[in-house]
């Protein structure tokens, strides 16, 4: 396999960076376009190999294009993530000390909650408990808006959860810093922020994973303890269809059914 980087790879990387995160079908279209524009080898099923070439070149800078799944709709996403949790990456993120503290506290609330959401009221109440420097509600609202804009958080009806991009970038950090609090999905074994939890044995599943797992079962039972599964079975969106789709942000809004009834 060729490991040489071409302008096709560079263009792919640039567009991906401008988006922050990109849904699978959009990334596949982009792959095709980049190869066509720069007249380089293209095979429609070789996106991951194509990305791998980029990753070989990114490795020395502790960056990687990573593939992940959205907890909302189960689709595949690609994002450029930073692997080194260095002082630099924190500082370069343009947030002040107390803004970062608010983000960390918000993350605590989200992770401790079973649903994977924190209400805005809840978060705004944290603003005047900050150790570094207290924040007015108005300021905190602005910070929340910025965090959503920069794809650290995503918001739905006044409730906040971690953005897919954030989970992709921070998965390792979260797993090691919240060891006992955080759940892994019983189906796909990656970190689960929004999940359905078995009321008997406590295992959790991503909503899309649960949707897929229970799809064929008329009476759902926990895959671990075999007790009755008391939650509404999430509907699955066509996972990763080839149909060109709208921007991820809009889509996320529409896929909320059955998320949070706990």
């Amino acid at each position, binding site marked *: 396999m060729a490991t040489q*980087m071409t*302008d096709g790879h*560079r*263009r792919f*990387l*640039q*567009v991906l*960076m*401008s*988006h*922050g995160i990109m849904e699978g079908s*959009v990334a596949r*279209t*982009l792959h095709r*376009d980049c190869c066509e*524009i720069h007249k380089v080898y293209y095979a429609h099923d070789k996106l991951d190999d194509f990305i791998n070439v980029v990753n070989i*070149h*990114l490795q*020395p*800078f*502790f*960056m990687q294009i990573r593939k992940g799944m959205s907890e909302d709709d189960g689709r595949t996403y690609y994002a450029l993530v*930073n692997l*080194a949790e*260095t002082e*630099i*990456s924190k*500082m*370069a*993120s*343009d947030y002040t000390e107390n803004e970062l503290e608010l983000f960390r506290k918000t993350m605590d609330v989200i992770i401790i909650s079973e649903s994977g959401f924190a209400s805005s009221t809840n978060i705004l109440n944290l603003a005047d408990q900050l150790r570094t420097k207290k924040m007015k509600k108005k300021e905190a609202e602005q910070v929340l808006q910025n965090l959503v*804009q*920069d794809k650290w958080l995503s918001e739905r009806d006044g409730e906040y959860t971690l953005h897919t991009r954030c989970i992709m970038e921070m998965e390792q950090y979260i797993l090691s810093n919240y060891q006992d609090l955080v759940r892994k999905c019983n189906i796909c074994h990656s970190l689960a922020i929004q999940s359905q939890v078995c009321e008997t044995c406590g295992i959790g599943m991503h909503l899309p994973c649960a949707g897929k797992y229970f799809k064929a079962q008329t009476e759902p039972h926990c895959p671990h303890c075999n007790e009755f599964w008391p939650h509404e079975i999430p509907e699955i969106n066509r996972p990763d269809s080839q149909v060109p789709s709208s*921007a991820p942000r809009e889509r996320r809004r529409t896929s909320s059914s059955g998320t949070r009834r706990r």
Partner: protein
Amino acid sequence: MAQKRCSKGPGLSQGEDLAADEDYALTQSGSQVQRNLERLSPAQVDQKVSELVQYLLVKDQKKIPIKRADILKNVIKDYRGVYSEIIKRAGRILQQVFGLQLVEIDPKYHMYILVSNLPRLEVENLKQDDCTAKLGLLTVILSFLFMKGNAAKESAVWEMLRRLRVDPGVRHEVFGDVKKLVTEEFVRQKYLEYNRIPHTDPPEFEFQWGARAAKETSKMQILRFVAKIQSKDPKAWSTQYNEAAAEEAAVGGLSQDTSTHGDTGGASQGARRRTR
């Protein structure tokens, strides 16, 4: 060009404070840098280079020019003695891996931006980010300024926008606060310069192209854009055409990467990169 002026921007004073400090870092001769390099392990230097690459990429996301003073303070720190080597290597990596060029847009305060080295294209489906509309607005303003002789009064710009049903006094459903977007965001990103016209009372302001606009697009691309909208030949505006051709010839001698691609969507295309 626009670089000769430095409009009011945040952090200028900081730049001045550190100016002496910075210049120390740059007064070293090549052989001094070589000697300093020998004192460090290659791994240490590589680490700094990759930190710098990351720093520049993250900072550039916001499209605000990156000050050398900040680079020294936040990344280089104790490695000032090999600064020139580190920035040279970082520039090479940005070019080889990311297809981006590190450009110093303000030689006085040493500010950098990243500009794509890849040819600009008219491929619609590559631009799907939220900022396309804003950059469309920007392209219109840049066109207006170029056609008006490279500068225009603020009031003339607002008047032109109003005719396009974008009223700076009214909240726009896509652009939000138009006045803020044009006079603050575009200015901070160095797409536009916004300065007081000397000796005006009450004060009047004028717009010009900013340094980033000059790097990300060209007068010829803007002229072709205007010509396309009006279904005319660019040569119909002889003054502007000659000016644009002269710029093209001057730039063409330095780099061959972008100028030959005569697409009219160039401004918004080039400008579109890495915005959110």
